[in-house]
């Protein structure tokens, strides 16, 4: 990493760190959502970006984590942050159970099965499975997180919790990418058979990728539950999975900085459109000239339309995502004398 790039990242991080001081609660909350989705997308990135498994059911793992937290917190009054690892474990266990029989499926088949899983989970939650999920109303009255006797309540306070979690995630996942495990995942993404031939237990690695991604999504579920204090099945529908999928692929699959940028664009950009009301008047007139009587009451209504078109255009002109994964490099100065370079 060049010094210039480190400077850029440090600058951006600093800017982000002071941003709650100048932004109002609404925009801080938007930033919180960006942070949550960035973590979710990073966890999906392990499965989709690194292992190359078409997984469009990540919301199911997220839901398991959030519901574990909600149920244990409201029934047994366990503090929310203590539930972070437990929710992660539950989501991981769930991933292990559902992924084991389908892990051998390839490409589009895996995609459609994972879509099926997320729908089944949502329907199960609506139908109040085991009588503990509260049906379509969901669960309410979840506690706020407490850190050393300080209760995190306002968006400004959540901002630091979420972005701290994101920073930890980025650090750990960055280490993971450059580890033996990360290289193995990339190998089996590029060529499944060659990886198997080189002694990589592909099934094992794919499963571990799934479980790891699920654990992280489950932990994000905990934070989400604590932030909202109320969760309902509709928060974990198929669309949520699609959003995470889009973040990874638009940003650049396999690339941490790309995924974070993707989260800013996919979650943040529509919110910016929301503010542009003057555009709606202009669009009304334009369409009226053509003869179409479309009413853009405010531009917010049309933002998803623009967004969909932007996705298509983006894929045509920059297929690999905005900031794709960089090729692996091996710093020469790390080579010990007498090894390799002779």
């Amino acid at each position: 990493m060049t010094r210039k790039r480190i400077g850029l990242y440090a600058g951006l991080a600093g800017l982000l760190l002071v941003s709650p001081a100048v932004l109002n609660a609404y925009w801080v909350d938007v930033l919180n959502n960006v942070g949550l989705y960035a973590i979710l997308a990073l966890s999906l990135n392990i499965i989709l970006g690194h292992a190359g498994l078409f997984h469009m059911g990540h919301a199911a793992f997220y839901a398991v984590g959030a519901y574990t937290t909600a149920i244990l917190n409201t029934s047994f009054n366990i503090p929310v942050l203590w539930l972070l690892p437990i929710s992660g474990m539950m989501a991981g266990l769930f991933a292990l159970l559902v992924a084991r029989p389908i892990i051998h499926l390839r490409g589009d088949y895996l995609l459609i099965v994972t879509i099926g899983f997320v729908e089944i989970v949502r329907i199960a939650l609506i139908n109040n499975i085991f009588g503990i999920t509260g049906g379509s109303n969901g669960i309410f009255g979840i506690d706020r997180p407490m850190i050393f006797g300080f209760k995190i309540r306002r968006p400004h306070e959540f901002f630091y919790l979420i972005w701290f979690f994101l920073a930890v995630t980025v650090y750990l996942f960055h280490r993971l990418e450059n580890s033996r495990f990360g290289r193995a995942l990339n190998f089996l993404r590029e060529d499944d058979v060659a990886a198997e031939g080189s002694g990589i237990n592909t099934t094992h690695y794919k499963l571990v990728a799934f479980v790891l991604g699920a654990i992280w999504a489950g932990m994000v579920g905990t934070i989400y539950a604590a932030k909202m204090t109320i969760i309902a099945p509709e928060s974990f529908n198929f669309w949520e999975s699609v959003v995470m999928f889009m973040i990874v692929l638009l940003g650049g699959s396999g690339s941490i900085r790309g995924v974070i940028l993707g989260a800013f664009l996919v979650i943040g950009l529509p919110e910016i459109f929301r503010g542009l009301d003057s555009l709606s008047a202009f669009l009304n007139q334009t369409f009226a000239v053509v003869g179409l009587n479309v009413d853009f009451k405010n531009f917010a209504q049309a933002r998803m339309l623009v967004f969909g078109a932007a996705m298509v255009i983006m894929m045509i002109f920059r297929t690999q995502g905005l900031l794709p994964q960089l090729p692996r490099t091996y710093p020469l100065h790390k080579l010990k004398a007498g090894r390799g370079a002779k």
Partner: protein
Amino acid sequence: MEFFIQQLTNGLAVGGIYALIALGYTMVYGVLKLINFAHGDLFTIGAYLGLTLLTALGLTDRMGPFGVVLTLAVMVMGLVALVGIILERAAYRPLRQSHRLSAVVSALGASIFFQNAVMLIYGARYQVYPHNILPKMAVSLMGLDIPLIRILILLTSVVMMVMLYLFIQRTRVGTAIRAVAIDQGAAKLMGINVDRVIMIVFIIGPALGGAAGLMVGLYYGQINFTMGWIYGLKAFTAAILGGIGNIPGAMVGGILLGVIEALGAAYISIAWKDAIAFFVLIIILIVRPTGLLGERVAEKV
């Protein structure tokens, strides 16, 4: 027994609709190896166009009920096919050489675009089809009254599927489509215009999807801009159930899925109705990943 027959015929009608949509998925998948996520929204567009044409043209006053539906179907199919061609040109053709996931994202983007376009034009509320188009008749079959519309839907979809099957199997263009599905490069070398074949696929698929949209409007009487998602997902499930890329497979899969769903909702639990399709899908993929009629393809090394 009567309850069973009623559910069965309902399932067959819904299955016919699924099969029509599934054909669009399976044909596109066959030639492009792409899940056309926007296909469900083409189906929605078909339903809305049908409603618009019905109310705008006032056809009901001029012809009999069947003439109306026939004219409407032809117009809707033509218009949706046009949308399909534009979709292929704008969103898929530029991506033909790139990674498959990019095309999937492009398809998702197109789906979001269509869905929101429909919402902006028609509004987010449910729209109601006029309910006096087809006479509310029931056909007496072995002492049971079965609504005429169910039989009509099933018959129409079966006729369309048979026509499609004959077209694919017996005509020159159909042979070209099959050739492109097997090997695009070799097809090109044999002098087949691959671009044109793909365009034809994007005429047939959306046209059938549009017809299915019209059927749903006539059958259930109300349509919504988001309905394309769930119908699309189930139809895609149906396509996989029968073996994706396989045209008779999509027909069998669609009808089977409709029947399983209707009977499951009736005898197991109506609350789990939407999940049944996915349970079936998961079981099929674990037990027989190539679908019911899909042939085993040797894995490429």
